[in-house]
């Protein structure tokens, strides 16, 4: 009778180990699939390219409950990530990509009544609410009017733009008579999101008197042409007939705020500005006259603030000192 030698046993164990390895590989492989492809999505990948494990399931998209009665989906939902975003919005992708873009979901809808009236819904998912707000505010159209949705929103003749939490929404229609449908879709979308508690940003520190709230914008980089200025909120004040643009930015530390104020001041001087005084009651504030506008730069605590390109020195000083006052209050 054959004696089972050590070699045979070892080989046997090796083979069993190989089987275990195969099990592991198979188990690992089953998780390697693209769930995004199970919800119907179109990816622009060119000539029928092969994708492993990607199977679509028919018919899904933004929950149909959110779609108003008189709209029906026109095609499936499209999804884009940072690599494919430019396939959808071409050069504009840069704006989003530099603001923490995560994902875009887009879908077209057509009016039941008139097949020629259609609109497209874009949902941009950004990294955080601040980034969403920045892309929202930096693209604000001039001829827009605010819309009451409970969140930052404005509308133009044929489009609706709003932001809620870390998402930025655009509803753009092909004709001008879908306003109601757009508003109701927007309302549904806002209500569907978990109630996002407004994070206290420095924007709340803008003094409210004469403030045009809908003008609050967040600019992420190269603000006012100065490369060191980033993440700055601006807001518009109507002082008499004059428009005053104020700005406010929270920095990491008081030192940084001071340094940045000084650096911005030097930048202004290098570019044709002259010193023109300071705000009474606000030490470390400077007024600069740049050609024929006034720039006020001040800092208090971690905040850098001021006014930008104001025609009237008095209005500039007025708004700037109110801001300073608010900052003082906040500091206590």
């Amino acid at each position: 009778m054959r004696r089972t030698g050590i070699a045979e046993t070892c080989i046997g164990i090796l083979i069993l180990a190989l089987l275990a390895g195969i099990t592991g590989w198979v188990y690992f492989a089953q998780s390697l699939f693209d769930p995004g492809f199970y919800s119907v999505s179109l990816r622009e990948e060119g000539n029928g390219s092969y994708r492993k494990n990607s199977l679509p399931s028919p018919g899904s998209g933004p929950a149909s409950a959110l779609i108003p009665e008189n709209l029906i989906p026109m095609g499936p939902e499209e999804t884009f990530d940072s690599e494919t975003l430019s396939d959808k919005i071409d050069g504009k992708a840069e704006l989003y990509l530099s603001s923490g873009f995560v994902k875009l979901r887009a879908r077209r809808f057509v009016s039941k009544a008139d097949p020629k009236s259609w609109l497209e819904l874009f949902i941009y998912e950004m990294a955080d609410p601040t980034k969403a707000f920045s892309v929202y505010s930096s693209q604000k159209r001039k001829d827009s009017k605010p819309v009451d949705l409970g969140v930052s929103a404005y509308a133009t003749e044929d489009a609706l733009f709003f932001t809620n939490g870390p998402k930025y929404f655009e509803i753009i229609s092909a004709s001008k008579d879908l306003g109601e449908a757009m508003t109701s879709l927007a309302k549904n979308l806002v209500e569907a999101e978990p109630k996002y508690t407004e994070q206290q940003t420095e924007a709340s520190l803008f003094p409210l008197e004469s403030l045009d709230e809908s003008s609050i914008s967040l600019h992420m980089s190269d603000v006012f042409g100065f490369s060191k200025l980033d993440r700055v909120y601006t807001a518009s004040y109507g002082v008499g007939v004059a428009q005053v643009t104020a700005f406010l930015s929270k920095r990491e530390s008081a030192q940084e705020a001071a340094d940045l104020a000084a650096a911005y001041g030097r930048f202004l001087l290098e570019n044709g500005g002259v010193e023109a005084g300071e705000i009474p009651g606000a030490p470390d504030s400077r007024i600069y006259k740049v050609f024929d506008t006034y720039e006020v730069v001040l800092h208090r605590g971690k905040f850098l603030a001021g006014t930008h390109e104001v025609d009237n020195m008095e209005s500039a000083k007025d708004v700037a000192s109110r801001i300073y006052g608010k900052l003082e209050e906040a500091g206590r």
Partner: protein
Amino acid sequence: MRITTVRRITQIFFFVLFIWFCIASTFGQSFWQLRGWPVNWFLELDPLAALGTILTTRTLYSGLLWAIATVVLTVVLGRFFCGWLCPFGAMHHLIGYLGSRGRSVREKIAANRYMGAQRIKYYLLLVLLCPALGAFVLNIADSSTWDPLSIACVLCLLAISVAVSQKVDPVSRRPITVFIGLAVLWVAAGYFLKLDGAFSASLMTGLLDPIPLVYRSVNFLLLPFADSAFHLTSAAQRHYEGPWLTAFVFFSALILNLAIPRFYCRFLCPLGAFFGILGRYALWRVGKKTAQCSQCSLCDSRCEGACDPAGRIRIPECVLCMNCLYTCHEDLMGYNTFRSASGESISPDLSRRGFITAAVCGIAAVPMLRIDGKLSQNYDPALIRPPGSLAEPEFLNRCIRCGQCARVCPTNVIQPDITKAGIEGLWTPALNMRTGSSGCQMNCTACSHICPTAAIRPISLEEKLGRGVFEKTGPIRIGTAFIDRSRCLPWAMDKPCIVCQENCPVSPKAIFAKESFATVRDGNLDVAEISGASVLLAKPVLQPDRFGTGDFFVLVQSGDNFARTRILSNSQKSIILESRISPELTTADLKKLVLQVRLQTPQIDPDLCTGCGICEHECPVSGLRAVRVSAEGESRNKKHSLLLNRK
């Protein structure tokens, strides 16, 4: 631990894995559904599929690269696949074992005796593989495709055939000359006589290749039963065509094991034959350690491959079951690097005559089969292939009939074809819109991504729908729907129905309706009195409550004026209308009105129809449907194009 124990564990492991893959080939994201499971792994490991597609397409597609692993291990170890990995082989092994229980040792030895018929599988391999060579030879004849790679391939093929022919019947002196002579003659005939039809090729290995065979048998026979009983993989019963043939092949192969163990493996399996040829230079082989043998033949009693271990062991037949190592009481057998002490033969027992006959049969088969014109004028319009399928000649060059596409199709509309495409198309996928839950779902490309050989090439959803970069080429069409006006309810029977138009999934719809009115049978009515919106008839002729469905109208004519008014309800003698008939028409002497039904008669817009078949599936004329899809207009073959400016 005995190696035979390990072998059994391995067989069970791969069998269970295989069954799991069959179950998991269900469309969906749950753990037990498709997800990322490598369900095609056994098909990809199968070198016949790889070799066949290399010959027909001159490429090695994607996952088939696994076949290299199998080849490497076979060349080094021998026919390990048959004895350790093949799930079909495991089934045969089990049933053979069960069948031989209760038999005496002598009977077992007799059943495992080497039989000359075991060479049939080599001939089968030739007959099944040689059809794929036609394309290869065609490329040689066509000098415009000569490039370094194809010349290298040709030389390789020549070298292999020289080597092979030398091993076949080495006694004869002229095998090389004859074989090469025949090949040259064939190529020359094709080139000079311009015999275009003489070089068709097709991939026929899938017919008997055990891995596709066992995939389709389990998927088409066993799982549907499990579904109907346990709703294992599908809530609804799935249907597959041609079970009689699939079952006949599958079960007869299994049942024959009761007579002779591993019947299929020994006599019929072309994959086993291929491994047998590959394993001739194996570094380790089963054999006797010394020649001192009492010839008790106990080693034969459990020999799976019937390879005659007691005598000159036939290496091509040995499936490495390792049973003989333990049935021998003298410990003579081993898995050694040296050849068996009592000799071994490493070439299959073929005759030159048989070899050449089989090869010629194989090569000639496809051109003969193509005489029926099914690939040109005489194409079967009822053959609808899944979206993404290549044009028919290229499709037949790649399809290994594994049935995975039919298995994964979420609507169960892909069926294994038994009759439409002849033997070349046996078990290849064809759509039957009447089966399953709906036609080909518009947003689904499941079949194209599961096909292991890209006979259905992987398509993106965008390409299928004709969006984005594919807007110019338009959507992928698998056919066109045609309304059968002789059967359609509104067209032929004046019965309102518009189910097809409602279900048409494309936007704008490819089925549109034209409104028309038809007079109902016995619809010319005599009026007694009309007051307001109600009409009293002269005689009680109407079926009560029949005409209140909203589809029926009353047509009143007076001279050149006429008006139609919808009927709200009716009794035997009276009709209540939706609104008053205009007074101009209800003059005192109005005595007649016509009862009409409003019909919406469907029409197909061929520019938009993609042939998805949902309309055919939903048509209430459930036998021979009043709207049917046929292959005209399918994108994959421009010759079947329906219209001129068709995208």
